[in-house]
């Protein structure tokens, strides 16, 4: 018989678990790679996670909160997920691994609008089609070198 034992709740263990929670709009990134985890606190009463919204009106926030609470439920403690604007989320918070993962799926990692490079052929000969793409955090570009349309994360 196998007994499910709740893993030891430590900040490190919680961070490792958070690294497995995907962002719902950019599932190749975890919430940790995206840089939205602001703080993790815990004690015998529960686990307290504060996240930074990427965009003020991000419609994915409820899903993110719920998936974090769900993933951390294995620790057997109450989980509270709050949001804060105490520090602004900026696209610089995306980890190097996160930037590589984005490029691998054809989304240019964030950089200033005139410094975006094509995620497929790395050409700098690109043009912004529209500042606004399929989600609040993305813009639409076209690569003149490989003639491929692509998306870029907004640099905010």
């Amino acid at each position, binding site marked *: 018989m196998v007994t499910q034992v709740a893993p030891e709740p430590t900040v490190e263990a919680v961070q490792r678990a958070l690294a497995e929670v995907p962002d719902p709009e950019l599932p190749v990134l975890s919430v940790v790679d995206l840089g939205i985890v602001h703080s993790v606190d815990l004690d015998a*009463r529960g686990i307290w996670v504060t996240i930074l919204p990427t965009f*003020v*009106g991000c419609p994915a926030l409820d899903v993110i*909160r719920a998936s974090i609470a769900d993933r951390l439920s294995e620790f057997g403690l109450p989980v509270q997920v709050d949001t804060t604007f105490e520090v*602004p989320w900026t696209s610089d918070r995306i980890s190097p691994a996160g930037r590589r993962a984005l490029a691998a799926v054809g989304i240019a990692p964030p950089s200033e609008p005139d410094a975006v490079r094509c995620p497929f052929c790395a050409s700098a000969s690109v043009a912004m089609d*529209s500042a606004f793409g399929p*989600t609040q955090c993305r813009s639409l570009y076209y690569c003149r070198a490989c003639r491929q349309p692509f998306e870029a994360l907004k640099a905010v």
Partner: protein
Amino acid sequence: MTVAGGQPARTRATAPVPHVEGLDELLRSMADDEFVIGFSDSEWTGIAPLLEEDIAMSSLAQDELGHAQALYGLLAEVTGAADADTLAYDREPADYRHARLLDHGRGDWAMTIARRYLYETSDAVRLAALAQASWRPLAELVGKLVREERYHLMHVGLWLERLATTGGEPRDRLLAALGMLGPDSGTVFTPLPGEAALLEAGILARPMVELERDWRVGVAARFEGLRLPGLPPTQDPARGRTDHGAAFVWLHGEFTMVRRSDPAATW
């Protein structure tokens, strides 16, 4: 806030709400501005002139509604209102305090671009005057809003240029729209009740009249470069955020329709 598995671990320490006269009016005017322009522009969803613009206008609208929600959230802290939705949906048209610039009906594409250009440039000047607000939750939110509004300005600025420099019908329509909006163009800067207290408390850095002057200088330079006529002074500044007309009453009916059908529903 999401709580799973029982009681919250602890409550978040929040900055105490300062008792400053006019803080509610400031937040209400900003939230109503963002809400009304966001809702107006969402009317283009599905019918914008280009697919990319349909997406862009919808995304802009989504940003503005998100900003409104955050600002209504702060307003709820100040006034003790139940939540952002109560503030957004449960008021009569006469109780909204958005600028009269946003009171005109959607109109054509040129009207939408002209209105948004005048609004975005005004909002940028207003946000800059709130960036150092002594109430931290407001300053923090403003810091975040500015980063997003930068893309709005960039986008609408390109459209203004495109319409202004393409002769014939595009330019004619832009001129007609600016003619219609002109007398209301400065109404984002309508002096607020309690403004002196906001200045005194270090929430608003400079009076609205000064902000309006800066804004007019910036817009005049841009318009001159595009050979567009200058903007007239505000007509009837005392009613810059009140006495909304029939177009807003209609819009209000639209955006409260679902809420009124079942006020207790959760979404």
